[in-house]
């Protein structure tokens, strides 16, 4: 982390960048938040640790409009989002100085809490330099431990790899943390009966409070004005009821990013209700891979995405019923 801070200060000092986009410590040991650093003294609360899951690429849309370059810290998976945004002309590559930061898997505080660890005062082992296998957690009830791996975000178990897609320089080592099948959960749902599927999503989606956190955090959901806020579809500002409304919102949300979603997992990470929203996006990714060939959004600068492309011999929509 220190190396990162030093380099950031250096680039600020020599005028290469006008500001630094990173994370600063939050009011709790596990909730650092995205922040700009413009002066040397700001760096006092700069952090980069296992809890810095937030994908900063979307902030670059606004940062691209600012005067001067912005130094942005991007983890390997964040660079896919950044590249996808570049492809869509939403960020200005010339306005960004990208430091590809190392990543050894990011942590999910909900998982730690789910282990019954409460009253957390401090956590060690989450520092990026440590190759700690174990987290040591100080709580008001004494010291507890848990395996780093068990506290990782779901998305890190299906990590896309430790390579940065786009960067000016890299700092820190990365580790590939993939130890699960990305589509396992999707397949589990696919195998259910229609009634079970319906019950599953009914239960999950009825929790939705339409806070729009998933939409606001998503780097692909970057419309200036969302259709759900637009009077052009008469779909604006619908109240929450236990009915189709939420399904429609989440289907369309996922549909609009289909072929553009890099599977960064931010939607699920930020959902205050813990809805596994990535299951929608991943279903589309799985279908796209199976029907139109494997595709990873943000891995290249090819303008056409699976939904803005076609082949004569594409499957007919009837395939959905055929494969049952």
């Amino acid at each position, binding site marked *: 982390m220190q190396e990162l801070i030093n380099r950031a200060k250096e680039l600020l000092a020599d005028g290469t960048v006008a500001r630094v986009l990173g994370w600063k410590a939050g009011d709790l040991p596990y909730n650092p938040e995205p922040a700009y650093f413009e002066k040397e003294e700001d760096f006092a609360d700069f952090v980069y640790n296992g809890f810095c899951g937030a994908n900063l690429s979307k902030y670059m849309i606004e940062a691209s*409009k600012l005067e001067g370059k912005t130094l942005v810290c991007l983890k390997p998976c964040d660079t896919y989002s950044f590249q996808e945004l570049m*492809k*869509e*002309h*939403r960020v200005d590559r010339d306005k960004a100085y990208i430091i590809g930061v190392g990543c050894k898997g990011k942590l999910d505080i909900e998982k730690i809490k789910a282990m019954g660890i409460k009253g957390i005062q401090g956590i060690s082992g989450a520092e990026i330099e440590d190759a700690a296998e174990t987290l040591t957690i100080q709580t008001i009830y004494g010291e507890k431990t848990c395996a780093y791996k068990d506290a990782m975000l779901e998305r890190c178990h299906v990590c896309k790899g430790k390579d940065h897609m786009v960067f000016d320089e890299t700092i820190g080592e990365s580790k590939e943390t993939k130890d699960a099948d990305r589509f396992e959960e999707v397949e589990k749902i696919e195998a259910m009966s229609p009634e079970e599927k319906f019950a599953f999503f009914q239960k999950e989606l009825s929790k939705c409070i339409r806070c729009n956190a998933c939409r606001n955090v998503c780097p692909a*959901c*970057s*419309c*200036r*004005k*969302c*259709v759900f806020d*637009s009077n*052009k*579809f*008469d779909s604006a500002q619908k109240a929450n009821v236990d009915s189709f409304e939420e399904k429609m919102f989440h289907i369309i949300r996922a549909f*609009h*990013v289909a072929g553009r979603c890099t599977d960064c997992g931010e939607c699920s990470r930020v959902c205050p209700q813990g809805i596994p929203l990535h299951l929608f996006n991943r279903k589309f990714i799985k279908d796209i891979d199976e029907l139109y060939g494997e595709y990873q959004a943000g891995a290249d600068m090819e*303008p*056409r*995405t699976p*939904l*803005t*492309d076609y082949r004569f011999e594409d499957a007919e929509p009837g395939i959905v019923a055929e494969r049952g």
Partner: protein
Amino acid sequence: MQRIGVFVCHCGTNIAATVDVKKVTEMALHEPGVVHAEDYQYMCSEAGQELIHKAIKEKHLTGLVVCSCSPRMHETTFRNAAEKAGLNPYMVEIANIREHCSWIHKDIEEATEKAVILMRAAIAKVNLDAPLKPGESKVTKRALVIGGGIAGIQTALDIAEAGYPVDIVEKTPSIGGRMSQLDKTFPTLDCSSCILTPKMGEVNAHPNVNIYTYSEVESVAGFVGDFTVEIRKKARSVDMDKCTGCGVCQEKCPSKKTPSEFNRGLDTRSAIYTPFAQAVPNVPVIDRDACIKFKTGKCGVCSKVCQAGAIDYDQVDEIITEKYGAIVVATGFDMIKLDKYDEYAYSQSKDVITSLELERIMNAAGPTGGHLERLSDGKAPKEMVFIQCVGSRCADERGKSYCSKVCCMYTAKHAMLIRDKYPDVNVTVFYIDVRTPGKNFDEFYRRAVEEYGVNYIKGQVGKVIPQPDGKLLVQGADLLDNKQILKEADMVVLAAAIEPNPDVRKIATMLTASIDTNNFLTEAHAKLRPVESPTAGIFLSGVCQGPKDIPETVSQAGAAAVKAIGLLAKDKLLTNPCTAHSDELMCNGCSQCANVCPYGAISYEDKEVNDHGVREVRRLAVVNDALCQGCGACTVTCPSGAMDLQGFSNRQILAEVDAICR
């Protein structure tokens, strides 16, 4: 709020017999925005349009709903009527209560209920309609004719005569098409080449006509009035300017084993060849698959004997790009393959032939020098059997569902010619029905029976069995005498079904012209617009649209020419105003819409916008109205919904959905 007038048409009894038009009219008045509703016998009549005019004026209507036939039928009529009364024509919507309602439902209550719902959807749409103004686009005053048969030749001549330049693209080395392969023509028995050759010469010499033979259409872009076409001029290996057409090269060419396409494979031709003596242009091509020089590198005889020095082995395909205002398709037909009709022994015996092969045999320039003989042993036949409807009128996948239309007449012609020239030959025709509608057609057929003694038997043939002695045993049925017939024949002639040229599908795709299940091009209206494709600027000439004989083909060719001339005579065309439009404040400038636009109509520019007080320069999508054809692909790709289609806006379609599901 709109002031909408609803007009319900009875269409005589077409609508009124199944839809309670009074009820529909009454229900209209309960809908939001509707200030006037009335019904009338024929809305499309002068009197009906007068009612519309009057209501617009008196009730100050801002929108119209006409509940009538399909908008594909009378939308323009009612839009024009509205415009005459000072209303923007795009403030008119049609509820299709005839084709989509009264004609397909029998129960009055059910049909009325549906008509009301369709009307509601149209009212909901009009409520959100906005006045639109069409733009203008230019017309390139040049026509392209695809296919150089009699249809293409006639169309090209007619357009050229009207003073417009025309290009003909013909795939084979010569124009002339199928008609050049025929010996005589019905119903007057003129010699085919005697009437075709002068036309070929005329079109070749016409100053307004440019012919690309041995060429194919490679790609088509653009739209009515402004098509850009790439034509591939295949390497002929002979210099068109130098060649004198002396024919020595063909005589000396050592490779002479290639089946002649012109003679339907009944004899062979040289590797360097003109398809037939009267070919236009009279310049041979080298068939590179057959040429020894191209296969082995050694030979070059033609080059040595050519005094004009016209042989050019290094010629390559050439792509010519040209702009056209109108395109006429005249791709013609071929006969179906008979490999699925094993029972007629076509592949087993050389003496079972198709009618087109018989044409070549009867022709003086054909493989037998015009002498009727069996191809197996050269003997003169004594008994000839003609089998009709081979592959026509079939319900299964072996043949075609349609009647090929020309077979009855050409079989009568063949029978008559044979009986005339070889009176000792007995001719039997097995038919299912004899179909002879046409001027002097039935008289022609009756002459075959009455004057020439051709034996017509009603009943299909079940099987043709080649005998060891070379004869053909024909097993048929006589349905009128109710007996089975076993007949020994020397030759059997099959009236094989005709089918559109196999290349037509590729061409239709390039032109985005629609095609039916049988690969015939679809006309814009089966009765009223038979020579136009639904795709604007594309016209149909000849058999590519449906089976027809020469007189019909020539009349249709002329009709297609007139339609093309009518288009070329205009200086400007009004463009469809239902184009896509991007909302500046919502556009992300993400480029996704440009990815799906088939016309390249979307570009991006940096533009300063004022978004509720925030002034900034944004990358925004801009639609070129002249290029946009209004498909709407971009509108769905746009995630924010910034891109919308005028006349079919998101809110309008949603309003229709809501009205239907209400």
